[in-house]
């Protein structure tokens, strides 16, 4: 049995079929987990003593907010790889992750706004957590706008990578904002150092929704990276063959 040479998958031509094989597994897992998470969160979990039913927004708000930051960190990782090793696939990964990151950042802001109204009496406040999350949305959109302004995709990779790496400073600011400043937004509900401040069933539902969001992001990113590989390598013979083979 020969060991798998993982570096083989660094080439778009060999990563394309691998991504295609992985997509259905992550998509099905995400759908099943979301179904279980929504059932636990919307039907099984009891009414919150303080917030009534409005707290149920947490089951999408927190997973979306976590993913919005996590996807940016993954983009920063691939940007560093793209700049250091100048590999094509790394730049394609950054390009494929950005729209999903932007979408989940929007979802985090939107659901937070609809939760803020019943919880604090306002849809929006310029507090540190919300403002830095809004800046995250602008970073995603800025990256996408910068890419679309540069015709040569390899140059767009490098310019985009620099933007993403400069913007990564915003991630610890978002994460620690509720500790560093006196924010309207509440502190961390779940942390690695303290016992969670919520009931076990609520925590379980939120964790399942978070894993579902994670698998969803992987599935949709792999699907998009397949499209990007074909778009950028369309003049090669192997891209034509890959496009035909399902």
């Amino acid at each position, binding site marked *: 049995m020969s060991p798998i040479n993982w570096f083989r998958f660094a080439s778009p031509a060999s990563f394309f079929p691998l991504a295609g094989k992985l997509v259905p597994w992550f998509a099905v897992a995400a759908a099943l987990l979301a179904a279980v998470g929504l059932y636990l969160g919307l039907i099984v979990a009891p009414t919150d003593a303080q917030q009534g039913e409005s707290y149920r927004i947490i089951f999408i708000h927190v997973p979306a907010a976590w993913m919005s930051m996590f996807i940016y960190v993954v983009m920063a990782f691939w940007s560093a790889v793209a700049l250091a090793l100048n590999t094509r696939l790394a730049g394609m990964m950054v390009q494929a992750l950005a729209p999903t990151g932007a979408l989940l950042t929007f979802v985090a802001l939107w659901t937070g706004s*609809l939760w803020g109204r019943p919880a604090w009496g306002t849809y929006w406040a310029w507090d540190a957590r919300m403002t830095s999350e809004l800046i995250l949305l602008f970073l995603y959109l800025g990256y996408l706008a910068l890419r679309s302004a540069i015709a040569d995709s390899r140059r767009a990779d490098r310019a985009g990578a620099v933007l993403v790496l400069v913007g990564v400073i915003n991630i610890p600011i978002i994460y620690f904002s509720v500790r560093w400043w006196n924010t309207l937004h509440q502190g961390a509900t779940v942390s690695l150092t303290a016992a969670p401040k919520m009931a076990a069933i609520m925590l379980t539902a939120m964790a399942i929704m978070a894993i579902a969001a994670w698998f969803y992001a992987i599935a*949709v990113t792999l699907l998009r990276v397949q499209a990007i590989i074909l778009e950028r390598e*369309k003049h090669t013979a192997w891209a034509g063959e890959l496009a035909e083979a399902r």
Partner: protein
Amino acid sequence: MTSLTDFLAMGGYGFYVWGAYLVTAAAVVLEVVTVRSRLRNARRVAEDSSEP
């Protein structure tokens, strides 16, 4: 069916809860549809423009 009505009312927070869930669901559906059509399109273009 009172229980369904109660469920949809969300204790008076229906607008906020369903406003959050429905927009999220719409965003996810929209993203999946756009990405799938982008890949379909990319397959067609790659088939046509690659050298034989």
